């Protein structure tokens, strides 16, 4: 019974998930701390400002897609294999749009906040960085999420239990790498 768990029971049950998120956080933290990323942070003002919002957004967008697909599988609304039908297509297109809309908004927002704090920031540069990072994130996250959910479901895994750790781990690691790629693209274009 959940209501009668002792502190040690709760600790034991929660520890694996917390440790997975620790390892994922250390991965993305290590990437953040690399020489290349530190140079990127230094060369593009506003990157640290938008970092928490960028990471949180991808959790929101793809976590909710995962939850939707998982509920859809349980309800029998979609089949556990990739099939280009209306329902699945709408869910994927919508999460792609969500990711792009919010990323553009974050670029403009962090530019605005920089202005208010009278720090330098280049709107075009931030837009390029975030659009590149959001596009790459969309491809990577959609690919990983669909594979894990469909393959997992066919093998008897409840997707509800795997989406959280998958989105966190893959999202944080890819997120930082894609920001870095966005920074180099902006450097080449501008």
């Amino acid at each position: 019974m959940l209501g009668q768990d002792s502190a040690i029971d709760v600790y034991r049950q929660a520890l694996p998930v917390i440790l997975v998120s620790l390892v994922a956080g250390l991965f993305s933290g290590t990437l953040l701390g690399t020489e290349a990323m530190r140079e990127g942070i230094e060369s593009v003002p506003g990157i640290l400002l938008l970092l928490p919002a960028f990471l949180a957004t991808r959790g929101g967008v793809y976590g909710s897609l995962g939850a939707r697909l998982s509920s859809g599988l349980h309800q029998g609304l979609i089949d556990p294999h990739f099939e280009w039908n209306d329902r699945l297509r709408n869910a994927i297109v919508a999460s792609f749009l969500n990711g792009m809309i919010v990323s553009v908004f974050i670029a403009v927002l962090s530019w605005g906040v920089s202005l208010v704090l009278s720090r330098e920031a280049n709107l075009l540069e931030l837009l390029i960085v975030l659009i590149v990072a959001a596009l790459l994130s969309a491809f990577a996250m959609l690919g990983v999420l669909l594979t894990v959910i469909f393959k997992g479901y066919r093998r008897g895994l409840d997707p509800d239990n795997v989406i959280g750790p998958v989105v966190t781990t893959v999202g944080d690691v890819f997120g930082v790498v894609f920001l870095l790629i966005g920074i180099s693209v902006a450097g080449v274009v501008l």
Partner: protein
Amino acid sequence: MSAGGDGGRRDESAEEISEEWTVSGIVSTLVPLLLALSILQMVSGTVLESFEEQLLAYPSLLVLVPVMIGTAGNLGSIMCARLSTQLHLGTLEFSPTNTDIRANVGAVIGLAATVFVLLGFAAWGIGRVLGGSLGLGTLLVITIVSGMLLAIWVVLVSTVSVYLSYRLGYDPDDTTIPVVTNVCDITGVLILFGVVTVVL
């Protein structure tokens, strides 16, 4: 990051109304929430930005940031999910002598202690490799002090918000997890850099 579960939660409640998955339906439900969330996250962004010099000088501190954000939200969602389930089961009583509350608090503190001690060692090791100069002692003080403050803060925020939600007549399952995970994510960064300012 903890926000993943929140979006799904909100989405599922919308789904009870309609099982049609339309692009405009999904976008119009989720985008306003994500925009609001991004505005909130600018608070932690501003803190990070104002510590840019220290973060670039000490890569170990950059290593700490994603873990701090993630763990804060995770602990908050565990605490809230348990409290609201216990509320629904009728076993919850808002009193420090209540055994359920004690078990939750004990578990959150134990989890925080485990994660933040490990984090101190890991950030030190990784920082070494990345060319940082912060000592193991300093990093352990930073991670343990901020981790324990965070655990206490998570317990307080979760308990108060489940209680308020219940008093105001909202199901805490729907309201508290999105609010608490985001509040904890943001205050996690504030606590970390508060401690960094004192220690360094």
